């Protein structure tokens, strides 16, 4: 060994010593399924698009979001955000305001006029979609992007389905809805309005469609037998909300009673308030805890002065009053009559007891099964008749816009495969990314940004949008509250904390890898990973 004066050892010569042989456990990078993605009925990659939004690249965020859901501006207003309910950050301070960021992205897209990429090529196949509601539009979007020719036949005079005829304007301004529908149609989707499909098989045959997706929704208000005088005014909720879209607004009077406990009941009561009713009273047979309506909507309704009579049923409807019977929950939580009656002044009674599906277009279709008034579909969304798929409110499911959009996407994937003579296999999901896997020390405390809401007085008298959006600063802040549960976000912690320089940083977007020649398996990287994206796995030898 010839060395310069006073130099005895070569620098870094310890590399000859492979300390990796000491290891009994090895760190392995993993990807886990975050709770938000897992909870999203539309299957959005929430964490993925939040990551783009965090870096301020809103268009990339919007493009990733719309891979799964073509209507973020609508979703950001009407979705009940199960993602936020499941968000791990909720255990730390408050859930990330995913819904408000989604709305911000949707509004940005409308403001900048971002368009979807044109379909890659044409498959030569034709698909008929019946119903231009959230489910039908979602399926149309995904099928068009897959290169199929899509025609949407809508019975009503405008597209939107329940997004237009069920959801009041103060929750979803129509300009937003129309902008997002127009963008889907711009993909080359053919929309036929006032085109009720009387019989699905005839319609498919007449225009030689290869497959059909049915999404006619549930538009027939359920009735309950209530003994009523000839002059009592009884309406159904769906009709009331639908007539809000026309010229002649419904005449509900000064005192309006709504019967039912779902979101539609709240929508009608809030609409009645805005139309000038002094009293809007909801009569519901069970308690607040049992109410199917979402709590956030109930809260907003109560703020606007809507009253609720819990544990009550309507026995009889008279000319200007109702007879209400008090109920009591039994051991099983079912309401039982008590015989105690009271009188409630009412100019009109609106029934919001759920909706039924108009299934007349399916008459004479062989193989089809109908159960409890909805169409049975397999896990691939196909009905008992080959080539006819169905989704949205007309199949057994929770009836929300987001679920409907999810059905449209799922059905589109299966229709696409079916048209190509293949079977769509969903990629296996990653294991869940639970809160217990996080090292929360590394996340700074950051409370949720609340969206501003309209003054109560204006909410009671106008149909202006109640909940306002976030501006860019707020949206960026909110996106950056994401913990990136279960998936590496390149915080460099593993690279930093390794005492053996055994973690190799591969550069932006390329994450890290472990140099097992020197990794001693101490586990510091896994322990100090904020988001739980490293597992320690036992070595075999």
């Amino acid at each position: 060994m010839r060395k310069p004066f006073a130099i005895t050892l070569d620098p870094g010569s310890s590399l000859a010593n492979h300390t990796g042989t000491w290891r009994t456990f090895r760190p392995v990078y993993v990807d886990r399924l975050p709770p938000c993605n897992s909870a999203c009925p539309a299957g959005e990659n929430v964490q993925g698009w939040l990551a783009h939004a965090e870096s301020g690249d809103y268009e990339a965020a919007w493009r990733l979001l719309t891979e799964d859901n073509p209507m973020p501006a609508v979703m950001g207003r009407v979705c009940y955000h199960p993602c936020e309910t499941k968000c791990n950050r909720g255990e730390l301070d408050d859930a990330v305001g995913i819904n408000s960021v989604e709305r911000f992205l949707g509004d940005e897209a409308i403001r900048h006029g971002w368009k979807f990429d044109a379909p890659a090529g044409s498959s030569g196949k034709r698909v008929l979609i019946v119903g231009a509601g959230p489910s039908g539009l979602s399926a149309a979007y995904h099928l068009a992007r897959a290169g199929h020719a899509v025609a949407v036949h809508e019975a009503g005079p405008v597209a939107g389905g329940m997004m237009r005829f069920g959801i009041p304007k103060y929750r979803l301004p129509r300009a937003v809805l129309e902008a997002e529908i127009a963008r889907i149609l711009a993909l080359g989707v053919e929309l036929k309005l006032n085109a009720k499909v009387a019989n699905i098989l005839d319609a498919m045959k007449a225009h030689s469609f290869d497959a059909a997706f049915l999404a006619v929704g549930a538009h027939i208000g359920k009735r309950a037998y209530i003994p009523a005088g000839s002059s009592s005014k009884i309406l159904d909720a769906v009709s009331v909300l639908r007539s809000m879209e026309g010229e002649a607004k419904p005449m509900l009077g000064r005192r309006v009673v709504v019967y039912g406990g779902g979101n539609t009941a709240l929508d009608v009561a809030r609409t009645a308030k805005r139309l000038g009713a002094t009293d809007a009273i909801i009569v519901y047979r069970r308690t607040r805890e049992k109410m199917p309506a979402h709590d956030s909507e109930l809260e907003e309704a109560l703020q606007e002065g809507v009253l609720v009579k819990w544990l009550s049923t309507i026995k009889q409807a008279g000319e200007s009053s109702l007879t209400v019977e008090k109920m009591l929950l039994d051991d099983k939580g079912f309401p039982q009559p008590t015989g105690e009656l009271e009188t409630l002044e009412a100019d009109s009674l609106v029934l919001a007891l759920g909706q039924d599906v108009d299934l007349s277009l399916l008459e004479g279709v062989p193989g089809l099964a109908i159960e409890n008034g909805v169409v049975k579909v397999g896990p691939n969304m196909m009905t008992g008749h080959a080539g006819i798929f169905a989704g949205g409110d007309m199949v057994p499911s929770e009836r929300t816009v987001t679920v409907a959009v999810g059905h449209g996407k799922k059905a589109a994937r299966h229709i696409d495969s079916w048209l190509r003579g293949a079977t769509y296999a969903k990629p296996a999901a990653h294991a869940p990314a639970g809160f217990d896997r996080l090292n929360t020390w590394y996340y700074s405390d950051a409370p949720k940004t609340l969206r501003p809401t309209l003054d109560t007085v204006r909410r009671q008298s106008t149909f202006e949008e109640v909940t306002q959006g976030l501006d860019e600063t707020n949206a960026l802040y909110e996106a950056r509250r994401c913990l990136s549960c279960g998936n590496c976000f390149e915080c460099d912690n593993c690279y930093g904390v390794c005492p053996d320089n055994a973690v190799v940083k591969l550069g932006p977007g390329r994450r890290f890898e472990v140099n097992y020649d020197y990794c001693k398996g101490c586990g510091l990287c896994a322990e100090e990973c904020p988001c739980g994206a490293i597992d320690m796995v036992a070595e075999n030898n």
Partner: protein
Amino acid sequence: MAFQPIKFYQTGTFTVGNRLLPPETRSVQANMRRTNSLNSGHRACQGCGEALGARYAIDAAMSATANQLVAVNATGCLEVFSTPYPETSWQIPWIHSLFGNAAAVATGVAAALKVKNRKHVRVIAQGGDGGTTDIGFGCLSGMFERNDDVLYVCYDNEAYMNTGVQRSSATPPAARTATTMAVGSEPGNVFGQGKNLPAIAMAHEIPYVATATIADLRDLEYKVKRAMEIRGARYLHIFVSCPLGWGHESELSIRIARLAQETGLFPVFEAKRGEVTGVSKIRRQKPVEDYLRPQKRFAHLFAPSPHVETIAAIQAIADRNIRRYGLLDGAAA
């Protein structure tokens, strides 16, 4: 003022790196081209806090001096595991002489560089708590007193780990070591002895004294950088955990160091000319029990029956630190 964390959500505030930060504000350790002054292949135990602390500190010093740096090493774990003949893990000019003379050798290196008119080359002396608080204490005090242009870094793992975990004057009360066994009516190291070296360094009124832990990288890097901006004698005391000597799981090294800071047992601050100028506040205060329990050197405090009074006495030390340095928001500084 102590290091001010970047208010940046999700990442950046406490993690090593942050893809969203401009490059010039990122940590040295996040850099793909960091020096890796202490390279792979060294023989430190799994999860060694000292190996980590040494790379953090020396990489930061290399970055602050444009790689014009010489390091002098006392005998100790750091020297033994990094440089067993014929190998070395160091990728910088590095010299080792004796256990007790690192400060004196560093003084000599600095003097030689001055004579050769190469004052842009900076000098660091480093050692463990044994080489610093016990054996090298005289040389170190002399270096402080003469205000020699050296940054002395002490990696404090609270005992002589290299030779088999014997007590040093930095070993905390009640801790079990090979020479303070957990036997008798007052098991472990005695209360009321030992040296608080940061305080002693401050008493020399040298330009800069600071403490840091391996649990707060950004604060540590800030202090090294700050120290390299100053000429004269400087002292940096880094708390480094020792899975072997303290008896904790190797993956807990950083967590334990964090708990030392968050309980108040190890105050993190900086001082100029003998006066404290900034402290790192406790973010999520924890009782000392959280710090003691995972370490086998304190196991005798919890079994067979808990030594309530001893634990309370350790808590009193933490409370005194919190009061003395104002470690909680709102507490007097």
